[in-house]
């Protein structure tokens, strides 16, 4: 469970050696877009030695590999041998790339006796938006990450703070995730100096149903974490509801003049679980 994932370029030793201190719930070590084509080997080896030798690693580790049809994919997946990676982030996801990766991962799992490798799929092509429900259904897929920059390029539209241009894609990702009980992760906000814009973007995404957001600079984490955490008021409400439920044993009761039934109790439990995970209690 996470609210925030921070991208760190795989070939940047200064960022890497401090990956554990940022307030993100997880780190995405990037071997793809943030790494120059001539430095792919450098990035891969640096992340590998970092993962193998560092004592204090980030809570959740995501590896963004290069696309499955690239020259680098085989070497990138070798990093699974470190056994430190929680999720693979698949760029340019669609049913074909997902199928190819799934086969490769199944082979690696058998060969190396790995546990089932979990995926987050990056939805950054029009094709992927169309296939998003199928992608979300795949048993390996635990989350979808919307990639608005590539998507708006493809659509030849301008990316705006208000985000009408990605409304459809955002909603498709959110519904596909909700229907399959996986996590919907929002696209990063690219202007790192615009705090107001970031706050708006986070609130907007959250209101639509996004559960987490990616950051491209550590300074964005504060706002992201704040927006995607349950509020103090919500946590208090949830605690009271669950307490009343546990005390009375009743499945249906009134609380603050409102009818509480099973789905509401489940919602309250979820909030408490979140609050626990994010150390908010």
């Amino acid at each position, binding site marked *: 469970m996470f609210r925030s994932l921070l991208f760190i370029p795989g070939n940047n030793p200064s*960022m890497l*050696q*401090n990956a*554990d*201190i*940022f*307030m993100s719930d997880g780190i995405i070590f990037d071997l793809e877009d943030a790494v120059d084509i001539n430095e792919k080997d450098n990035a891969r080896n640096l992340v590998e030695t970092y993962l193998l030798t*560092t*004592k*204090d690693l980030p809570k959740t580790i995501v590896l963004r590999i290069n696309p499955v049809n690239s020259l680098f994919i085989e070497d990138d997946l070798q990093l699974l041998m470190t056994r430190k990676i929680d999720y693979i982030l698949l760029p340019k996801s669609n049913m074909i790339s997902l199928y190819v990766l799934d086969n490769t991962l199944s082979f690696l799992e058998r060969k190396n006796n790995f546990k089932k490798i979990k995926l987050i799929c990056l939805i950054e092509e029009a094709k992927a938006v169309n296939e998003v429900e199928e992608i979300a259904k795949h048993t390996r897929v635990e989350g979808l990450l919307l990639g608005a920059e590539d998507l708006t390029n493809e659509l030849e539209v301008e990316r705006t703070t208000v985000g009408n241009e990605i409304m459809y894609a955002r909603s498709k990702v959110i519904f596909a995730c909700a229907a399959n009980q996986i996590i919907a992760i929002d696209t990063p906000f690219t202007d790192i100096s615009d705090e107001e814009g970031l706050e708006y973007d986070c609130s907007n995404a959250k209101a639509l149903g996004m559960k987490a957001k990616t950051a491209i*600079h*550590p*300074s964005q984490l*504060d706002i992201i974490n704040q927006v995607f955490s349950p509020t103090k008021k919500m946590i208090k409400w949830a605690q009271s509801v669950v307490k009343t439920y546990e005390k009375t044993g009743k499945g249906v009761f009134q609380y603050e003049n409102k009818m509480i039934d099973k789905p509401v109790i489940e919602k309250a439990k979820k909030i408490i679980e979140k609050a626990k995970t994010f*150390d908010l209690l």
Partner: protein
Amino acid sequence: MLNGVGREIPNSLKPFVSSDDYKNNERRKISKKNKQSKTVFFSSYDEVFDSFHIDNKQTLSFHHHLRNGDLVIQEVCKVIKQKDLKELHFAPSSIFPSYTEMVELIKNKNITNIHTNYINGDVAKTISEGYLEGQLIMNTHGGRARAIESGDLSIDVAFIACPTVDKLANGSGAIGKNACGTLGYAIPDLEYAKKVVLVTDNLVEELDHYQLDGKFVDAVLVVDSIGDAEGIVSGTTQITKDPIGLKIAKDCSVLLDQLGLIKNGFSMQTGAGKTSLAVVSYVEKIMKERIITGEFGSGGITKAYVDMLESGLFNKLYDVQCFDLDAVKSFNKNSNHLAMSASTYGNPFEEDIIADKLDFVVLGATEIDLNFNVNVTTDVLGNLIGGSGGHSDIAKGADVTIVISPLIKSRIPIIKENVTTITTPGEDVDIFITERGIAINPKRKDLLEKLKNSKINIFSMEELLEKTHSMTGVPAKIKKDDRIIGHIEYRDGTVIDVLRRVHDDYIR
């Protein structure tokens, strides 16, 4: 003999005991200067030298308000070179990288002894490598004021760069083409030097407001230029973008908040670095959110503090030196932007000093050790790279002294078992904030108690050291040279540590 922080001090020197020990001693004061004759006006440095008979072995003092833009010390050095005066004692309040003329004078033994509070650049390198014939004595800002008023540092001639002077010899830093704001560090020199020369490039008829009283001034030297305004601005107006710095600043503000230090009527001082600026900005945010008004901010003042004064977040600013032109402007027009002298800032024997009124201060460190001793004077090899300035003064004065630093800078661990050089004693350092956790001085049980139920990650200094070494490895031992080139005087005049020449192996 060993002093109060466990450093071996030559028997000829007075050892540091503790930061409170000054209370066991009487304040010593020589009488303030009583000028005999009328102020004279000169138009060249040579005239000053001739008429005041500046000669071998004399002590000349300067202030550093013009920082890297100062031309006065450079010009005085040129005259000394030309006259080939020997064995002079220099007492500038700080030495900046632009003071390049001093280098040759040190190597040629024209300057053989130095008192200063901060030193950086080529002069620092020259002295670190052992070229100063006599000794380098490093003071604190408050300690320098004490040394001068007590006569321990006796000044023959004080050259005081002064952006505007009037015909009655009153001086102000607030206006003029090289305006630098308050002249706090020059006040002790003004009052106690045997001869005082104001050096200016802006002579006016009469000043309504002035900081330097003409009654102490023996001569005014009018020159074409005392400085280069470009070099005067120091500090930074840019908040750090470095994520480590931001993280430290954020954690610092959270801690300040949890300790209840950001409350109505509070007072604070921070450095002028980028990370300190980020701390100020986080504190400002908290103040605005909760509608809190602080009593004062102090120190070298920057735009950040000026903005807070102007938006009513602070009632007053106490300013010993303006760090940027916004501060200079504010000092000139805002009656709540007040000047303080080095003595009212940090002299331990002065009554009601600003340092003692501070609720909390946020300071930097080059090194810090398991006993919380802080080094801001040398690097790990012993090269001079700074000095206390006000560090020890406000660390002692403030109720809560916080030191912030990354644990590691380019693989170099900031925590050491023992710091290379002790500038500020650990007894005055309460909290150390790093990107990987916070250490609290065990003697501050009150702070630990307040944070008992907080989620802040508190570690012992030993744990932080271990964390560091697990990343960097254990650094090799550094070789020390036998030759003592000077010492660090604590604010009360006792010796807290000696300074050694950098070992030959480290001199390129």
